[in-house]
């Protein structure tokens, strides 16, 4: 696989891009190869000028070749399709290398979108249209970075968290118990080539009424309004940056918000507070107070921590859930430093107590 552009030169090094063995697609590919999948159109050059013990030099399909190699070590044997080039000139080899290494980077969002349509159908997209997270006729973006709207992963995450929260909330008979726990909003997997397990559990029954669930519908509509309000507020503010505009759509804010919406289904007064767009904190220009969140840091956090609600880590999701839960206590509460401080401290305190170390 260490194909060279100038075979006769020892100074000519491996020309192909690095193998991405930790990439989920590669891991899936390896698994498929081990299960006896046939691969085709692997582009190789027959050349014995170097490493004559391996005359086929791989130019296109090195990940597939590596998967086959790993599978053959596990005694999986089958035919694969190769396109073999002979007697290439330097120019021809160079063109072949260039073409084979031109990688159109397919985003996880595109994978997710295609998989959703094939495996589940159009339910998720239609639901997003109904609640206002997508406009009619609009699809999930194929690359999140180019579009400021909900992705397939985020929409799935919303659905899953709403039902996870609802299930958890039903376990508590009193509102008091809600406060004595910390929560772990879930983030659906993306780009794995398979449907996220938790999401699949919810949608696998095609006769399921989840898409007509009134609570989910109401939560989706409220969230779409919050996202819109956040977006509009930041557009009008002095700091009109993308991160602040899309604060509601981050991988920790959205799961936490949806989880709390589910959790509070059996606590209508608090649910009402949660679903309402929060009033602005003093000095803030947007309902989620993105600037305050972006500067937030706890003593536990690493130096490189970029503020609350920016990362997809479980810690950030837990904290955001507590922030939303704290805000739901009082209809006039807003996302100010005091509320954020107290909510994060509560999660940290509860986590320490849950270790069971306490005497």
């Amino acid at each position, binding site marked *: 696989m260490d194909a060279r552009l100038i075979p006769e030169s020892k100074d000519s090094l491996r020309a192909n891009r690095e193998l991405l063995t930790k990439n989920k697609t590669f891991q899936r590919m390896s698994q498929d190869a081990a299960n006896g999948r046939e691969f085709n159109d692997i582009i190789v050059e027959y050349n014995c000028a170097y490493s004559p013990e391996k005359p086929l030099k791989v130019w296109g399909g090195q990940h597939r070749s590596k998967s086959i190699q790993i599978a053959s070590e596990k005694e999986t044997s089958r035919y694969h399709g190769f396109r073999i080039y002979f007697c290439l000139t330097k120019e021809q080899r160079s063109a072949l290398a260039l073409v084979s290494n031109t990688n159109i980077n397919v985003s996880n969002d595109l994978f997710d979108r295609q998989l959703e349509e094939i495996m589940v159908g159009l339910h998720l997209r239609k639901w997003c249209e109904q609640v206002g997270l997508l406009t009619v006729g609009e699809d999930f973006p194929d690359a999140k970075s180019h579009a400021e709207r909900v992705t397939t992963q985020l929409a799935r995450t919303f659905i899953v968290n709403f039902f996870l929260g609802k299930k958890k909330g039903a376990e508590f008979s009193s509102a*008091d118990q809600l*406060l*004595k726990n910390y929560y772990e909003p879930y983030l659906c997997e993306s780009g794995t080539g398979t449907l996220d397990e938790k999401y699949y559990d919810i949608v696998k029954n095609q006769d399921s009424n989840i898409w007509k669930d009134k609570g989910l519908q109401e939560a989706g509509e409220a969230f779409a309004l919050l996202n819109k309000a956040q977006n509009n507020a930041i557009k009008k503010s002095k700091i009109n940056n993308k991160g602040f505009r899309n604060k509601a759509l981050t991988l920790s804010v959205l799961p936490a918000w949806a989880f709390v919406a589910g959790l509070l289904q059996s606590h209508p007064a608090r649910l009402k507070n949660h679903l309402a767009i929060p009033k602005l904190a003093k000095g803030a220009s947007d309902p989620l107070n993105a600037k305050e969140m972006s*500067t937030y*840091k706890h*003593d*536990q956090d*690493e*130096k490189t921590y970029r503020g609350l609600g920016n990362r997809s880590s479980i810690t950030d999701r837990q904290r955001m859930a507590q922030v939303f839960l704290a805000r739901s206590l009082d209809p006039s509460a807003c996302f100010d430093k005091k509320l954020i*401080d*107290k*909510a994060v*401290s*509560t999660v*940290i*305190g*509860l986590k*320490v*107590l849950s*270790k069971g*170390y*306490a*005497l």
Partner: protein
Amino acid sequence: MTRYYRELIEDAQWFCDQADNAQASLNQGRFTSASILFSFVALESFINNMMFDFTALPSGLLTPHEQGFLAEKAVELADSGANAGKFEITDKRRYQSLEYKIMFLVARFSKDTVDKGSTLWQRFQKMKNVRDSLTHPRKDEIKVPSLSEAEEAIGVTKEIIQLVSQKVWGKKVQF
């Protein structure tokens, strides 16, 4: 903007470096004193913030005495109203010593207690005495701290922060 233990330790280190550059001049004592004070302010900040985390817990998870200790407020027996006969937290300030706070946090929220016979605790006590001599000066005990004492104060406060962090949170912090 809130200043955290990390920045305060950096301040202590900055003053220590200045003291090193000032060598034996009069300024060296000024810098070493400032460095020691900042080291302990960093430690106090870390401990107080950790105490704050537990004061944020919902009621019923800690006793009124524990809550009072964490909030540094007095706890008294209520003699009237709905809570008559029960202990409740008042608005009266009850400041706790740094040692007590450290001992309480470790004993209440970890599997362990502070080993007061350890070398680290002895070093901490020694440096705290130096800090106390700066904050509560007496003319018969005035002593300008040395550069090595300033360095030791930074080292020992960092080690105490790590000790408490590991015991209570189960993880190390980054400086």
